């Protein structure tokens, strides 16, 4: 997957987790928490969905990489480079 495809995949997951949020104006550089109501359970959901949909394992010590869209995509890039786009 390309970085753009990974971003789209993460947006898709966020839409399932937080269906009430408007993600069209999401600022990739800013932390998710500052732009939407996400708690620690939501971050866990992102991890579970990544595993379910793309078989990507994110160990607990790496959760800090999921703070913003930019950091999430750059963290996932090497892990998902070989993952086929849907």
């Amino acid at each position, binding site marked *: 997957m390309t970085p753009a495809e990974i971003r789209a995949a993460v947006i898709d997951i966020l839409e399932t*987790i937080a269906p009430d949020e408007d993600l069209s104006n999401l600022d990739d550089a800013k932390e998710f928490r500052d732009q939407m109501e996400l*708690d620690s*359970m939501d971050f*866990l*959901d992102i*991890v*579970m969905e990544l*595993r*379910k949909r793309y*078989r990507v*394992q994110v160990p607990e010590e790496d959760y800090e990489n999921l703070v913003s869209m930019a950091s999430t995509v750059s963290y996932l890039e090497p892990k998902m480079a070989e993952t086929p786009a849907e």
Partner: protein
Amino acid sequence: MPRDFLKDAKDKYDVIVIGSGLAGLTSANILGRAGYDVLLIEQHYKLGGMATWFKRPKGHIFDISLHGFPYGMYKSCRRYWNQEIADRIVPLRGVLFDNPQFTLKTTYDRESFTELLQSKFGVSQATVQQFFDTARGMNFYDDQQRTTKELIEEFFPGRNDITRLLMEPITYANGSTLEDPAITYGIVFSNFMSKGVYTFQGGTDLMIGLMKDELERNGVDVRINCSADRINTENGKVKSVTVNGRDITCRSVVSNANLLTTIFKMVGEEQFDKDYVDDAKAVRVNNSSTQVYMALGPDDYLDRDTGDLLFTSTAESFETDLLLSRDITSRTFSLYYPDTRPHDERKRHLIVSSTNARWEDWANLDDEAYEASKQDLIEDTLDALEKYVPNARERVVYSEAATPRTFQHYTQHVQGASFGTKFEGLAVSRGLPTQISGLYHAGSVGIIMSGWLGAINYGVIVSNEVDQLLMP
């Protein structure tokens, strides 16, 4: 021949979940939904653990722990169960405090508390805001030395009345005291303050019924009257569970039984490192409870303004010891109006009085003394209720008491613990899979993981780890 509650059960599953409290139910649901072959066993004849109810003749249905939980339940039910369950989560707006220090009514959210702390308790807006922000900013890996008492004292020095306002509902919700770590308070209090107190419309029986339906849709094999006699291990890994005398093989076990029961009775301490056993032995179980269940007659009517949750006390000041004392001064009345079960045409009004209690005050009474003690508890509760429900004694047509022994009997929890363990239990619970690969514990531990929401969310956290382990 006795009935075989494991009839047609398979010899092998991916995961066996022991216990159907909310953590066990949720764990089984998530893992079933993820495609694993899951067996859920419950020793009692009913699912739900402490999320339970009971029926009595003439149409009375009593809920044990339905009132109430934070709004976070809505999101958790929607994500980990289904929309139908989430849509039944509704607010309780009438929270009343009545004690020698103050009497007030609140919606129990940040807005209402901010207003009350200023107008009734004379605190500045800045202090209130700072307190709320500090509580909300707390994480469970923060400093664990500071106690709740120290936290409250820092913002509201010498104010026992404010301590009472801030603490009484949390003690009711999760059994914590002023001596527990401040973070356990901050996390739970902030959860409630975000939007107030909620309940499940339709009653605990409906909720557990809908959860059972969802489990079955997700292919979980659900079995009641099935006890885990032993969790068997081999080379440091989970191998099987002996259920009602029958060995069933599995790759992973999620135990929603009491943490200490899991370690010492189901597995056996010889299977663990000495340091871990020492830590486990040092875990204090949380206190138990007494409850009195009271039903009004079929044609009786209770004014909705009486409130939903009444935190009442006759004690002059707020002290932890008084909350647990056999000489009861504090009672939380939970009032269940007919809209608890809108589908029920009988339109009953029910009242449940809850008080935290110590196991040892009830454990060693002989039968006669025990029955007399229970009767005293009912009589005293009816007297206390008069103030809020006029002529309560004549109007209550059915009453019954539960004690720490009752909770122990139905849940098999050590010392009838109704709120899991104290804070140190969390690390021991989390550490279980480092001792035995594939073995996890999910359930009320460490105060922050207790209550309906804490239990559900802990079930999710543990399922995530099981999934990580089992994923091909």
